[in-house]
């Protein structure tokens, strides 16, 4: 047995845009144990629900995260709508699906850039983020915002996508899809990339379930579980099957995300072809009285909101279990036994979002 040393990783680290700390216990160059530490920037947004009107709180929910902001708002609205038994217009459900999948594409491209930067492939990083800007342009044109869309509200959507803009959106997606094929091709087939990812940080199917993994981290271990199968929004009308791979290593998790980029494009095309005419919102009256666990698939995995109302304008409880929070224990397990040099790449394979975690 070599000498044991504790190496602090984070909270400030070149691969970490946000603060998380891991104590890496190493023997020579091998990590034998990892102890995570979060909570550096805990914002207490859940507590804020006691002061904010439940309608206003959509704006807070959207600000839990700057990447999956729209889906946070959608999860919150769906929860309130379930409690208040509000039937959202079908067109609004399709609009939510389209914006949600655009969010997934830009989130996965953001991850692709960070991942490429993590293993030192700078041109791939810049290329990924250049394409992501194109997706943000679509989002800006259809919602008015690039990061915080503000287009989801309790009872439906705030904005519509007119037919001519939908045609423009689809034509732009064709260009983006071609660009993403080039990026995915490098991620999946480049020897230097595969050398860093294949066989590194393996989590078995059984371990992924017991460790509570979600999203591409779970599906990359061969579990075809995805909350979109709950058929919320318009997913009940669309042809959708989760993407999974059996290997359970870093390459597998990356391959799932790469495949999901094109799956999201396909889902947007399906939604655009089927979206019906009609209203985009219904009037909301009264206050929520009841409870619901609202579950939605974010780019990083299942997000769970527990919402409890007591018939007043302020909720009794709002609790968000975000995907990165669930993926911390699997990360800790995959770090044990890896080489010290693989730690930054391994951390990025769960696509950590500390902003979500520190809600």
């Amino acid at each position: 047995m070599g000498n044991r040393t504790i190496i602090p990783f984070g909270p400030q680290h070149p691969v970490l845009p946000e603060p998380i700390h891991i104590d890496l216990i190493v023997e020579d160059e091998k990590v034998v144990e990892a102890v995570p530490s979060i909570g550096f920037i805990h914002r207490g947004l859940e507590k804020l629900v006691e002061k904010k009107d439940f309608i206003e709180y959509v704006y807070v929910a959207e600000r839990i995260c700057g990447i999956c902001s729209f889906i946070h708002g959608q999860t919150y609205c769906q929860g309130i709508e379930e409690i208040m038994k509000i039937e959202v217009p079908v067109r609004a459900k399709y609009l939510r699906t389209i914006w949600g999948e655009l969010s997934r594409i830009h989130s996965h491209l953001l991850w692709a850039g960070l991942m490429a930067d993590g293993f030192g492939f700078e041109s791939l990083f810049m290329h990924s983020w250049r394409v992501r800007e194109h997706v943000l342009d679509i989002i800006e044109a259809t919602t008015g915002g690039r990061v915080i869309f503000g287009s989801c509200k309790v009872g439906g959507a705030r904005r519509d996508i007119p037919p001519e803009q939908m045609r423009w959106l689809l034509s732009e997606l064709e260009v983006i899809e071609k660009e993403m094929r080039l990026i995915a091709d490098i991620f999946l087939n480049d020897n230097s990339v595969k050398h860093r990812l294949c066989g590194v940080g393996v989590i078995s199917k059984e371990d992924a379930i017991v460790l509570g993994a979600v999203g591409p981290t779970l599906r990359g271990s061969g579990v075809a579980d995805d909350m979109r199968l709950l058929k919320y929004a318009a997913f009940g009308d669309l042809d959708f099957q989760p993407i999974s791979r059996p290997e359970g290593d870093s390459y597998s998790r990356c391959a799932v995300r790469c495949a999901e980029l094109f799956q999201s494009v396909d889902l947007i095309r399906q939604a655009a072809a089927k979206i019906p005419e009609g209203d985009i919102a219904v009037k909301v009256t009264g206050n929520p009285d009841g409870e619901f666990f609202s579950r939605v698939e974010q780019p990083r995995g299942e997000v769970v909101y527990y919402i409890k109302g007591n018939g007043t304008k302020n909720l009794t409880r709002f609790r968000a279990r975000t995907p990165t929070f669930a993926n911390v224990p699997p990360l800790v397990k995959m770090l044990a036994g890896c080489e010290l040099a693989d730690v930054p790449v391994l951390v990025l394979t769960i696509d950590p979002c500390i902003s979500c975690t520190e809600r």
Partner: protein
Amino acid sequence: MIEEQTIIAVMPETLAAETRKMKEQGYRLVQICVTRLGEELQLDYSFDLNRRFVNFRFRLPKTGARVPSVSGIYWCAFTYENEISDLFGVQVDGNVLDFKGTFYKTAMKHPFIQDAAPAPVPAPAKPGDQ
């Protein structure tokens, strides 16, 4: 209704045994959630198997709440158990990775069982204000 959600009442004494049964059936631990209801705390342990959502629920007094850890069954529970300990002051007995109150760096102890400070009242408009 997006999905059926089963809520099962359990006792803190039987929590570990019931949780072990869920693991044996292949359920994933989704979350542990605490809700303050006046002078009581409501604890929810949520599980999922192929999108079948099952929730264990029980209540404890707000002051001096203690629960047995389930981190020996689901190791990943250590994050949730540290969270409920730091934010709600719930004493978790036997957590395999106990941060002893340092998981979250909060300005006050157990902030989520404190009464919310009243929202600031906007200052009255002065004559001449736009």
